[in-house]
């Protein structure tokens, strides 16, 4: 086991592995922060856009637009003047609001074709119009079977909380687990192909001991990295509610995955097939786990945010049990295996 860890250290692969994880995390966060900022105008501070309102019935729109962050509405009597100002860039959009025969408000919206800015603008206009729609519905109350529920006041909430707990954290906790499995597959396949497993037979160790040591060494890497990630997230202000449960979860999962990886490496004829089987197996397991009452990623999110249900705890116990079963199965299989046959 010590030898295994030493070889990992000497190859600096762990450094590389952590750098890669950091990179992937940074990359996905970068994308999400960018996208969220784009679709959430409140994230764009101090960027007021003026829109022109024309038509017969603008009072409600005017009020709604002024309540909307980042929008200022200007009333125009003259429709062509509004369009002229639009063409010169003085207003960002023209909204032409009229009543139709059924007393519905028909809003004809003209926005510029200008990429990202338009996206932000359309999001804001949609929210404004939805506010108007809600208002109008309340006025139609007597014609509706059910009155729409009042919508709570908007507050300034971080839009990243959901992403952090449901995507980023599971990603950070699962990546080390999969890498551990991959390392073990490589390690065993290589010993087989180079014929160095024969040499280990001379050592005063049984083959089971060798596999055990490799298993523990690689599986232990995952919870260590998980602890580091959790500490880093906590340092950055993301509260982690059940760190112990999460670390136990990662360790159980790592043991399970590593045991499966070891089995694959011993059964498959060469590295390409071992890695193919292993990676497809992981992906398939992730897909199949949708059938569980809780997806593993959801389990992680619930533990971390502090709302685990009894199902969540039961699943944690199940994963621990599965890990124990997988390891004991592997040991039994290895004991029966003739090292010479490898």
């Amino acid at each position, binding site marked *: 086991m010590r030898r295994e860890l030493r070889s990992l250290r000497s190859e600096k692969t762990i450094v590389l592995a952590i750098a890669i994880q950091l990179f992937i995390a940074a990359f996905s966060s970068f994308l999400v922060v960018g996208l969220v900022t784009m679709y959430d105008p409140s994230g764009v501070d101090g960027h007021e856009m003026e829109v022109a309102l024309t038509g017969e019935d603008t009072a409600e729109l005017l009020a709604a637009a002024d309540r909307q962050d980042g929008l200022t509405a200007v009333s125009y009597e003259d*429709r062509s003047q509004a369009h002229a100002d639009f063409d010169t860039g003085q207003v960002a959009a023209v909204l032409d609001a009229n009543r139709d025969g059924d007393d519905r408000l028909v809003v004809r919206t003209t926005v510029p074709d200008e990429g990202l800015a338009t996206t932000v603008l359309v999001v804001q206009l949609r929210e404004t119009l939805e506010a108007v729609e809600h208002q109008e519905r309340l006025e139609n109350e007597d014609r509706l079977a059910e009155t729409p529920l009042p919508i709570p006041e908007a*507050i300034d909430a971080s839009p990243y909380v959901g992403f952090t707990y449901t995507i980023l954290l599971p990603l950070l906790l699962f990546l080390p687990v999969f890498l551990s499995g991959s390392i073990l597959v490589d390690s065993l396949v290589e010993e087989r192909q180079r014929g160095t497993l024969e040499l280990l037979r001379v050592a005063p160790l049984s083959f089971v001991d060798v596999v055990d040591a490799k298993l523990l060494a690689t599986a232990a890497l995952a919870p260590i990295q998980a602890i580091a990630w959790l500490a880093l997230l906590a340092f950055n202000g993301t509260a982690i509610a059940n760190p112990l449960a999460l670390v136990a979860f990662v360790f159980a999962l790592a043991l399970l995955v590593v045991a499966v990886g070891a089995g694959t490496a011993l059964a498959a004829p060469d590295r390409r097939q071992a890695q193919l089987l292993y990676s497809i197996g992981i992906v398939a397991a992730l897909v199949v786990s949708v059938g569980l009452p809780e997806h593993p990623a959801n389990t992680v999110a619930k533990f971390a945010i502090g709302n685990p249900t009894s199902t969540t705890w039961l699943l944690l116990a199940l994963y621990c049990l599965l890990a124990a079963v997988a390891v004991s199965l592997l040991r039994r299989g290895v004991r029966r295996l003739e090292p010479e046959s490898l």
Partner: protein
Amino acid sequence: MTDGRDPDAGGADGIAGSARPAEAETGGLRGRVTRTLRVARWEVTRSVGTVDRKTILVVLAMVTVAGVVGLAAVDEGLALESELYVVGVDEDDPYHDVAVESTAFRPIPLSDVELEDGSEDGNVDVVIADDRIGHVGTNGEAAYDAFRGAVETYNERRMAAEADETAAYPVLVTLEYQDRDLGDPVGGDDLVDDEEDSTDLEPEADETATDDGADDDAVDEDDSGTDDREHGADGEVDDGDGQADGAGVDSTVDDTDDDELAVPDVGGGHAAEQTAPGTPGTLSPPFPFQSLVLAFLFVVPMNFVIQAYGSTIMDERIQRRGELLLVSPAGRLEIVAGKTLPYLLGLVGISVAIALAIGGGLLSIGAAIPIALAFLAATFTGAMFARSFKELTFVTVTISVVLTTYAFVPAIFTDVTPIALISPLTLIVLDLQGDSVRLAEYLFSTGPLYFGAAVCTLQGLGVYREEDMFTQKAIPSKAVDAIVSQIDAISRRVHAYASPFVLSALFIPFVFAAQLLVVAVFFAVPEAIALPVVFVLAAAIEEFAKSIHVYAGFARSRFDASLRVATVLGVLSGLGFFLGEKLTHAVQFVGLPELTVGVAAFGPALSSEPLVLAALFLAPLVLHVVTAVVGALGAARGRTSYAVAFVLATLIHAAYNLGVVSLVG
């Protein structure tokens, strides 16, 4: 290299056995091609042969199970957010149903709610009591915000079930996109392309005519009907708008007295153009990244193919298996080319298939190929350097991550800045958007990758020989070996002193790509932080490229470690780099120096004053020579002094860049 061939050495092996007829055609181009193709054929048959039936069956079984379960669960989604938040609400509260319907919330009765520390924390995130909604704890705000969204969704669902549609949907919206030329009242007519058609979807023709000053609109107006149809039939990649257009409350369209009805909904080429009146909720903002996501499809299979490719190269190095091929009549270039060919062809085939599937043209394929080459070349070198499969796994993952970033991140800025063009993915995005690309832009975008792939392959080929393939050496020492083998090759052909000159110039594509990546990564960072970092990093990259091969030469005793030799090598290295860099000034054709961060990396745009021009032209020469000499002097004395000299040279370089930019800018 191939002098010591012994065609009979591998006689026992089937591979070498079938190679015998090749002896007749050893020389000439035809012989080379034949041998390359033969190695390629072996590679294919061997790869196919080693995949046994059991593996295929297991893989198929797993894929089938995953597919069935995945398809069954596709309606529910991944449910990652399911029951993420807890809301305390009594059953008779109107909001109780909201919490029940929304998957992200788990309702508990108010009697079970426990609040601690004066309602600072507790077992709930949101509490609803007496028609008031409050939030608790650190994640309460986010939960409250999510609950607000859930109420909106709940209302929408109730309204959709209403019988009286006009009451349930009292607001109708149409959305249209209109080009406008800001600050350029005269020009811009040439920019009027078919995208302008979107304005023609304007149902009331007279309004367009009066309100739009641009006369081209009035001209287009007459044939707007046909234009629209053409546009809709373009087969452009616009999955998004079909949904947006169709999602409107179609049954209510009849009620409106507008003449929009006369115009069939041909769904413009634009994302989410909404001509039929719909509810506000159906307004979907244009998604500018759609083409980007599609372009990303090209990169995904490459990540998988290089895994297999890395394995096959690595396999040759385990148990000295590659020796059989090395002693065959095929030279190492032919062996490597033959082993690579099937994977390259496979990637090209996949790219063509993807291009056909998503409607990309020749340009998309032409832009995908250099990315594929770069992936394969980097993996080849990585597999030559790696000591074990474990290390190879990390090397390939690193290559995947770095190259994917290099391709993906700049492409995000496709419509924002010309710097996006450093990634060939941008070309694919442009192609998918229907824009045309100039040849210079194609070369700018793909050139570094072509060159980079070539240099990478050369490095890998340098160590494709017995003494490096089958020994365990650390990656840095292998890299030094690879460079030294290039030095040897150049020394044999020209002169020992020519190597720093040539190698400095050869490394330019890497320098160029690395600097562009630095610029792209720091593009989004505030300039106050980005500029100094970019200055230092750009300088460090250049200094490294100028000195690493000199260091390699000294470390393997290819040069005398004397002051004179070090100076000469430094001067030559600086000169080579300077000339190479001038070539890359093709950058300026694309207008990159307009970007402040670009100036930091590449130096200011050339001024029109002849004196300034000459000074600006020669100053970098002096700089490169001076810093290269500093680096070379350090390199001659061993690793530690090389590190010190490298830092020193970087600082000099950065200071110079800063000085020039502040002088000119």
